[in-house]
């Protein structure tokens, strides 16, 4: 669980930044130069450290992680740390609000689809669970008073959509004392204040089908933006689909090419985006609007389904 040090220069001029490899991706945390910078390097280090700590608690790839060790005590309430408790509680809340479209208990099915390789060691993580079990989020019980998690059946929690967002938001708390800053983790972004030019951050949204163009550009300040697409992490077997599974069928949905969500927290943006992806363009868009976040869903023929709020964010 080390953090390999691979500092490389950021492409953004005027930024004091550091880049680490964690959570299967490159993470950049940065503070814009020009304001009060005292203690900023320590703040960047603390920001980066949250990614390591969240991954230690929540990685389903690591058999020693807190989330994997829940499997040793199926049926018992297991006291867990704050990170795992809050991540699980939020995942469960999103599962309930989305009628199970988002479901953190799909971990086992992901393994069957081939998403079982630890990116750092290459080791696979096959879990000895019976094949006929199809757990849902209802097999997960939380006790808010005792801060315990109970697995009512053997299941592997997949907190991927929540954990990275939580780490980004925690890192953001470290940088919040500075005026202008950014956090970027594998395409998930949280920005504070303005860019080095003193304008709102300009965030391009990846085009789901073309690598030489952006889908659109947003002007953002003090906001998180997360984009997921059907282009991400296709399984080793291309016929098996991409990494967003419909918990209700076990298949990858085909209706949405990409979803972008802008929200006050990265945790909400990432998890709500995942839910919207599964719900499909129309229901997904309505779901996002009901949750008070701005979003854009794009289908494979590139028809766009934005929430009403989304248009005013466009550059």
């Amino acid at each position, binding site marked *: 669980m080390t953090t390999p*040090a*691979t*500092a490389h*220069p*950021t*492409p*953004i*001029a*005027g930024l004091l*930044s*550091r*880049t*680490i*490899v964690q959570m299967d*991706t490159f993470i950049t945390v940065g503070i814009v*130069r*020009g304001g*009060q910078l*005292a*203690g900023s*390097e*320590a703040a960047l*280090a603390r920001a*980066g450290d*949250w990614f390591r*700590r969240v991954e230690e608690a929540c990685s389903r790839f690591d058999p020693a992680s807190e989330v994997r060790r829940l499997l040793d005590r199926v049926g018992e309430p297991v006291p867990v740390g*704050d990170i795992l408790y*809050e991540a699980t*509680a*939020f995942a469960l*809340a999103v599962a309930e*609000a989305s009628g199970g479209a988002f479901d953190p208990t799909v971990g086992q099915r992901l393994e069957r689809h081939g998403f079982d390789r630890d990116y750092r060691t290459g080791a696979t993580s096959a879990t000895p669970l019976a094949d006929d079990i199809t757990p849902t989020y209802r097999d997960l019980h939380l006790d808010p008073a005792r801060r315990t998690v109970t697995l009512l059946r053997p299941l592997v929690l997949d907190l991927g959509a929540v954990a990275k967002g*939580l780490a980004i*938001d925690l890192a*953001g708390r470290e940088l919040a004392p500075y005026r202008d800053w950014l956090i970027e983790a594998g*395409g998930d*972004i949280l920005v504070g204040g303005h*860019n*080095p*030019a*003193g*304008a709102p*951050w*300009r*965030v*391009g*949204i*990846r085009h789901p089908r073309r690598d*030489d163009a952006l889908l659109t550009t947003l002007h953002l300040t*003090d*906001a998180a933006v997360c984009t997921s697409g059907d282009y*991400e992490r296709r399984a080793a077997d291309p016929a098996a689909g991409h990494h967003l599974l419909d918990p209700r069928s076990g298949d990858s949905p085909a209706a949405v090419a990409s979803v972008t969500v*802008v929200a*006050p927290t990265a*945790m909400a943006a990432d998890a*709500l985006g995942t839910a919207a992806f599964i719900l499909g363009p129309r229901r997904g868009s309505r779901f996002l609007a*009901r949750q008070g976040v701005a979003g854009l869903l794009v289908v494979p023929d590139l028809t766009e389904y934005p929430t009403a709020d989304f248009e*005013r*964010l466009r*550059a």
Partner: protein
Amino acid sequence: MSSPPTPSTSGRPAPGKGGATSPHKPKQAFANGLVALSSAAVIAVYAAGYARTSTAAEQVQAVAAVIPTSTTAATATAAATATSTPTATATIAPTSIPQSAPATGRRGAAAAQPTATATASAPAASSGPAAAATATTRTATTTAATAAFKDGTYTGTGTSRHGNIGVTVIVQGGKLTSAEITDCGTRYPCSRIATLPAQAVARQGAAVDLVSGATDSTNAYRAAVNAALAQAR
């Protein structure tokens, strides 16, 4: 691209977070269940973990290096040798890398108030070795020249869960003209990854600070390009 409120000519620092930018914020006042819940969760974890973070962070601090960008060099130089400030700024301004263009305004601002910048940023920015500051001062003129990249061919490597990606980057006329993947030890065929280089060249022209929705392969590629370009500075 509509016109952002760039304070390039006034020499004043960035506008505040006041009313001008509030339309860009998402609807936060809407204390809707899940968004409010996510904020509460972040605060709960942060409050509980605050005491523990500092020691761990200091360890990380010792390992990872913070790369100073050319802007620091320019600012430090401006601060150190106040007399040469106007010429230095003038030379830097016509940079051929679009991404660094927005910083020109900030540089101008720094030059306009040299004493303020010197006292505010010098101690913080060079909390590491003092050697860094002297080095930038000594290479004051070359810093201005290398705000763009030095011409040449460079290689770099990035890592992803699917393996390493090696790139060869060509800089001509101070500008990135080609960033080809020359080594892809990934599980994906090179043909799929090979669509990426056009993206890098396109983004050089795209006036964005960040892109949402990158994959780990694109991140590995980007890291490789950055590693290669680091040699071109």
